């Protein structure tokens, strides 16, 4: 069984150290050494190193980070911005929160290195409004980093300047989408922007912009320190490295665990999360946050935690938010809750998402509350399919995919509701 030895951890290696959020403690554990090293390298070598590492964005979409940095035009005459996406809003995902609360300096170090690599002198951490604790920890850490000379003018005696601002969002899921985040940071309504132009060319304030997830930037110092090849030695052919997984639901030890990509999902649930609570039978697993289609119990047996395996099973690794669902839980109720979430969070810009999310919610709710008909199930499928691939941002797909996934993989449970004209699990459970 492939399992990450604790000594080989990349992200959570120092997590147990007390007071790691303090600059001094972080330095004593070898912190900011990677930044020193990076500042002595030509920026394009850093980008090469990250390309070699095979690191892919950890926010959910999995775009190769080095390539993203390579797209930024260096001769546009405009300032370049680096935005750290800390708007971790995908239901079931809480890995970035842990990183920011426990080890904020490592994130700052990652931002400084990445900014240096893409030639950005102003970076923002856009953190979701609900993460008040993480935001204040970050703010304190940023202050310390300024005093210690890791941020500000002429960092560590080099000619590199960097300003870093912690900006709190107001709690909209859509602001986690990179162009929605940019709109929000610009002071506008948090709505995704049309592409083209892509943010790398015209993003924040119309300037070249890189948007990276917390975990992605958090990984960068390790890669710079140990080299791209060493990072690429972890993981599988197309999913390199390790990743954090937030596991929640009906398990004994929910939490955030680091695992090498390509590990067994079943083993992950058993070994890290301590298996099913009360010996319950597993019914389904949402593998990568609420917008990814579910896996059935049989599929969980063969699934591995990497992008290839998930793609083969018709779902995604996403943000690594694993939600474990036991046999005694009503899936229709669960889907109703998911549908309500996306209905509430749709920005309302594109017709299919604006209208479709509400309609899906009404249809699923009608089944859960005993008013569904068999044709409703067909309507859900047709409407869900109609919402996919036709909008500015992926929220429409994110709403339709899990609903379609549950309806297709667990049709009997929906039919049971429809035939009984009530929820067989009872209204409250």
């Amino acid at each position, binding site marked *: 069984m492939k399992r990450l030895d604790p000594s080989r951890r990349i992200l959570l290696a120092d997590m147990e150290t007390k007071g790691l959020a303090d600059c001094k403690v972080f330095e004593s554990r070898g912190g900011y050494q990677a930044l020193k090293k990076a500042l002595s390298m030509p920026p394009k070598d850093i980008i090469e190193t990250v390309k070699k590492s095979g690191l892919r964005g950890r926010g959910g979409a999995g775009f190769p980070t080095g390539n993203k940095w390579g797209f930024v035009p260096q001769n546009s005459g405009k300032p370049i911005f680096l935005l750290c996406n800390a708007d971790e809003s995908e239901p079931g995902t809480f890995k970035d929160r842990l990183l920011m609360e426990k080890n904020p300096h490592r994130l700052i170090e990652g931002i400084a290195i990445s900014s240096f690599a893409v030639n950005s002198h102003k970076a923002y951490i856009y953190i979701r409004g609900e993460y008040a604790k993480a935001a204040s920890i970050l703010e304190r850490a940023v202050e310390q980093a300024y005093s210690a000379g890791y941020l500000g003018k002429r960092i560590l005696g080099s000619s590199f300047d960097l300003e870093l601002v912690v900006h709190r969002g107001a709690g*909209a899921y*859509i602001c986690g989408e990179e162009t929605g985040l940019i709109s929000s940071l610009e002071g506008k*309504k948090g709505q995704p922007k*049309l592409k*083209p132009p892509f943010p790398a060319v015209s993003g924040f304030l119309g300037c070249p912009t890189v948007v990276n997830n917390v975990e992605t930037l958090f990984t960068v110092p390790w890669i710079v320190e140990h080299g791209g090849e060493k990072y690429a030695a972890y993981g599988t052919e197309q999913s390199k490295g390790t990743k954090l997984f937030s596991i929640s639901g009906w398990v004994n030890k929910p939490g955030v665990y680091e695992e090498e990509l390509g590990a067994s999902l079943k083993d992950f649930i058993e070994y890290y999360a301590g298996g099913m609570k009360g010996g319950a039978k597993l019914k389904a697993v949402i593998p990568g946050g609420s917008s990814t289609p579910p896996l059935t119990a049989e599929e969980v047996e063969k699934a591995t935690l990497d992008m290839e395996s998930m793609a083969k099973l018709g779902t995604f690794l996403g943000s690594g938010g694993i939600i474990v669902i036991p046999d005694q839980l009503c899936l229709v109720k669960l889907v109703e809750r998911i549908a309500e979430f996306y*209905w*509430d*969070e*749709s*920005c*309302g*810009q*594109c*017709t*299919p998402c*604006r*209208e*479709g*999310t*509400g*309609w899906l919610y*009404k*249809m699923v709710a*009608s089944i859960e509350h005993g008013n569904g008909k068999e044709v*409703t199930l067909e*309507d859900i499928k*047709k*409407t869900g399919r*109609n*919402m996919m*691939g*036709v*909008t*500015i941002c992926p929220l429409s797909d994110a709403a339709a995919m899990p609903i379609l996934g549950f309806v297709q993989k667990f049709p009997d449970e929906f039919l049971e509701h429809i035939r009984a004209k009530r929820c067989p699990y009872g209204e409250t459970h």
Partner: protein
Amino acid sequence: MESVKQVELTINDRKMKVAAGTTVFQAADKAGIFIPHFCYHPDLTIAGCCRMCLVEIKGMPKLAISCNTPVSEGMVVQTESPKVKDAVKAVLELQLINHPLDCPICDKAGECRLQDNYARYDLQASRMQYEKGHKPKVMDLGPLVLDAERCVLCARCVRFTAEVTKTNELAIYNRGDRSTVGTYNNQPFTNHYTGNLADMCPVGGLTAKDFRFQMRVWFLQKVQSVCTLCARGCNTLVSVNQSRMQLYRIEPRRNPSVNKSWMCDTGRWDYHYVYDNSRIKTPVRHEDGRLVEKPWLEWLTETKEGVNRDPKGVLIAISTQATNEEIVDCVQGLRALGVENFCWIVDEAVVGETQPYDGVLRHRDLTANASGFLKLALGLQIERYHYADVKKLFEQGRLKQVLILGLEGKVGAWVSSFMAAIPRDVEVTVHATNVSPYFESARWWIPNVSSFEKSGTVVNALGRVQKLQAVIPPQHTARNIHEIVLGLAQGHDRISLPKAHAENLFEAHVSARLLGRPVNWRELDPLGENLASEGVA
């Protein structure tokens, strides 16, 4: 001209070449290929939110919105493939699930994009079985009424107030299917271009109070014309009900080099002077402080006698609201009777300004044809047409009679200052559409036609020769300048003008003076043509 790189692409098996940087939507539009849309507008930025203009592009995994996809060399596009039609049908279905479907009481019915697109792409019964979302209806926003339930949230209106008027009254509040367009605290609009919002609204979301419930649009015929209420000369479509022969609505007609797709609210809604009670209905003579209605013949006879007696004592003051044809006819016809003095009536302080004072469309010169007058004055050798020249003539005491011809609508200080300069012993005739307090001192008022009752050409402040078309018959007993000149020449009014008099005059005497070559009336570009830069015929 800089040569723009051309790109070849294929849309629906038709090969075409367009400039690089064009979007697929624009390329299709240029080729006459219809792509359904709500949010795209040629004179606004791209929003890309209605998701109706989806097309299939060879080699791209997903359908793309044509409004935001630039063309590329060798691109192969399908706008009517089954995949595209299904997607458009799906988007329409979603667009309609919360739409109130109140077409029978909606004023937009008949010119509604949602209706049109439904008829073309959708035509299916609703699968929506639940209570529809509810939003504010019949919201009074000043000149417009908002029905947020009908709104398709294309954000055209929001972009218009942000980009064109820059007044930013509108926004879309809330999100998801609760998204509602509106103004802050339901405050009324503050800009002067609100009527455009009703035009650009693809559905019955924003309707203009002026037109609401006045007439079903399928009972209206649209005639191409131009607005004459300022020197901009916005191109218009004038809607007339043919059985009542009545004006119902004026809308802008797109002309990228004059008014884009817009016009101001004055041009749009001030046409009511045509039907106003202040309209001069017959010639009126002031007799010992009384106003006495008279037949046209009496004015003709009296004036003709005056002209015959002392043609050099007559001043013809032509409002720059008159058409080029009227000006030429008037000068040529009355010179034949021996009249020598011609001048203009215009606001001399602002005439010739080529830029709108509000940065959008409105000019301070509220007459439509000052540029035409100036161009023609040169060719007709009218030299002393300024107010200062006229003042000298008055001071010399040589003038006995003044005919002020061609005034229209609400006239301003530029007319009163002229009237004030006329000595008391000079007999004045005012040819105008509507009564004004400035006309008190005139001996005669004679009824003029409005610009909706005459054809001809006018030249706007940008030097563009544009066509004015009669859409309704002359109201009451109103006569245009052509008829007055003919009457004065004849001394009676038993002979009426030949058919298409103004049109023929344009071809024979006016077009060459303005455009440097004779132009057939029908061949004059509906978007107008620029004045010839040199060579006055």
